[in-house]
């Protein structure tokens, strides 16, 4: 979805494709919060591009501050598979004991994508994390996703995570956003 | 016309500030031509700074960033709204001459804000109250 998307191009709430996209996001949130990472991997497209650019605090004339060329995450399906496999070892200390997360997804907007069967989906997210007796960490931002149809199901083909913080106020990012 | 600075001392695309009597004059060189305007920003009455011109051959006020054309004094970007006054300028025998007219004469002191009972002019306020 781009700045030029008009309201008329947005799929109506409750339309078939809107509901499928929203359902995808809600189910994904549940898989992540339940630490069902193996099932989550099944929702990722083979050609997935998954990025979370670093952001800086800049004047409005310089735009939103997302840095060209540096990210907190620059992932493919295989690198996310690596992260999941890491969590499945018995020495992934940052997640052993594990984080307890809550992925809240809202403000879902859907339009038809560039290719047949693809949907461009933007949404706002708020992810809370607590772990052991530590206070909550909050991760908030916007996701810009491309969902691709694969038979009867949708797969995540592209995700851009537009994070709200410039200095990450969390000691690590050992969870998925 | 009063002599000011040697033309050769002015880099193309730069300006200097010169005092002629009571007047502060900004002298800018663009290519091989010289232009003269008041050197006092019409917004916060700050003296404009000598040095290279801003992109687009403009003069940028150091304080709030107003951009003026040194050619006709016009405002290209706020917060100023009033153009800089321009003065005739030309090079005579390698020296930039500027005519500031009556502005060079010592003027009666404008009412200072610290004069007891002084009030701003309606013009400086910009608009009457409704």
């Amino acid at each position, binding site marked *: 979805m781009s700045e030029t998307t008009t309201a008329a191009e947005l799929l109506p709430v409750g339309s078939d494709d809107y509901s499928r996209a929203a359902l995808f996001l809600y189910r994904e949130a549940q898989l992540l919060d339940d630490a069902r990472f193996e099932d989550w991997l099944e929702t990722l497209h083979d050609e997935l591009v998954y990025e979370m650019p670093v952001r800086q605090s800049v004047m409005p004339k310089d735009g939103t501050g997302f840095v060209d060329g540096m990210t907190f995450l620059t992932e493919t399906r295989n690198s996310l598979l690596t992260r999941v496999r890491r969590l499945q070892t018995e020495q992934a200390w940052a997640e052993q004991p594990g984080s307890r997360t809550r992925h809240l997804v809202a403000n879902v907007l859907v339009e038809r994508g560039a290719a047949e069967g693809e949907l461009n989906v933007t949404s706002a997210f708020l992810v809370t994390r607590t772990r052991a007796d530590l206070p909550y960490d909050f991760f908030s931002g916007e996701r810009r996703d491309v969902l691709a149809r694969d038979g009867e199901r949708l797969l995540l083909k592209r995700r851009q995570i537009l994070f709200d913080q410039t200095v990450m106020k969390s000691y690590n990012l050992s969870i998925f956003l | 016309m009063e002599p000011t600075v040697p033309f050769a001392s002015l880099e193309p695309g730069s300006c200097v500030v010169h005092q002629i009597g009571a007047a502060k004059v900004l002298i800018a060189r663009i290519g091989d031509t010289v232009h003269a305007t008041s050197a006092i920003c019409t917004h916060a009455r700050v003296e404009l700074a000598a040095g290279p011109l801003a992109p687009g051959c403009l003069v940028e006020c*150091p304080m709030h960033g107003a951009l003026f054309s040194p050619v006709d004094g016009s405002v290209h970007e706020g917060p100023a709204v009033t153009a800089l006054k321009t003065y005739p300028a030309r090079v005579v025998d390698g020296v930039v001459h500027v005519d500031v007219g009556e502005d060079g004469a010592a003027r009666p002191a404008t009412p200072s804000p610290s004069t007891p009972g002084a009030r701003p002019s309606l013009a400086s306020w910009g608009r009457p109250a409704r």
Partner: protein
Amino acid sequence: MAVNPAGLLDLSLADGVELTQLIDEPGAHISRRIYGNDEIFELEQDRIFRRAWNFLGHVSELPNPGDYVTRDLAGEPVVLIRGDDGEIRAFLNSCRHRGMRVCRADRDNVSYMRCVYHGWSYSRSGDLVTAFAEELYDPGRLRKEELGLIPVTQVAIYRGVIFGTWDAEAPPLEEYLGDMRFYLDLFLGRTDGGTEVVGAPQVWDVSTDWKFCADNFTGDNFHLYTAHGSVVDLGMLPPDPMSLSYGYLVRAQGGHVLHLVPGPPDPSFEYFGLPRDLVPQFERNLDSVQLGLLKDHAWSVGTVFPNLSFMQVMVQGDIGGPNVTFLSLRAWMPTSATTTRVFSYLLLDRDAPEQFRRDSYEAYVRTFGPSGIFEQDDMENWEDCTRVNKGKIAQRHGLHHGMGLHLEPDPSFPGPGQAWPGSYGERTQLSFYGEWLKWMTHERPWAS
């Protein structure tokens, strides 16, 4: 700072314990009291960070006149700005009128540094150009030539890295770095064009005493097979826990330390796995000893005292992916006794080929930084150590730093400084803490 005749600063902490009791370098014990302690933090700010040469940035962050970046130096805001003359200057980021920051973005390009409070404006060289309503000051009151931004006392650049110190007495940067320059050149001075920052630093806040980060980056290689056991389990580090134990621990000078670790005897591990196309440049820019060390090693991590670390390591970014090297700079900025702001940069040789740039970037982001499959576990350790070591019972017992102390420096090692054989050991950590104590207790720590 109060100084006694022997050139020692006041050694006593509030409860009468002396600083010299906290670090036992020969006995290899470090008191837990040095971590997470407010009194120590204030002393460190005074005696280390306001005196030492601190990392400020990299020249490639400021390519054009008027470019600025904002940073901290010893806990106070500074701005680095490139002037119209091309010089990079650094100033306390604070208007001389009320103290407001004059540059408030992380980066920008400005014609003037303008205070948004009352309009005082400073040139790109830090001079006060104009104050508001100057005609309302009596003549001579507003001496603008004395009211420029307060410059960082000394600023200097080494191989593109910008350093600053608040101490007029500090020796020149090159002298401060001393023999460490020889080793820094392996990473920062090996190619014709030098290095550049990729994008911008990743920045994040960690609830740790900064010393745990620096300690870890003095060349602690033996935490790999425990702290990063998950990566071993994935087959992304060699299975034998001693496979990364070879090479040297090097104390270049003072507290500037590093390790140099060789890969197995295979050409793919030569020159740290850097692109072969760059080897002619290495040959041009390094002397024969440096070139030999670059060729023979694959991993190096080190720290420039007090809080600038670097790493050039070969890693796999994902299962089955290529083993790729990256160069990262780290500044561990203490923000309190128990919190540290981490600045992590990826550097690339300007002349590196395009495919390598992409591979190196992916390897770096996937393994280090807050999401890195290595580094996310490091913060787990640093935060826990900081919390636990605050305990009064815990503090009755020192921390053990004794590995490899029986080894003598290898006289045949060709580089400057002292080099102990084998990269598993605690010589470099002890050197770091010994230097820390020297700075905490000596009037002129850089002397001797």
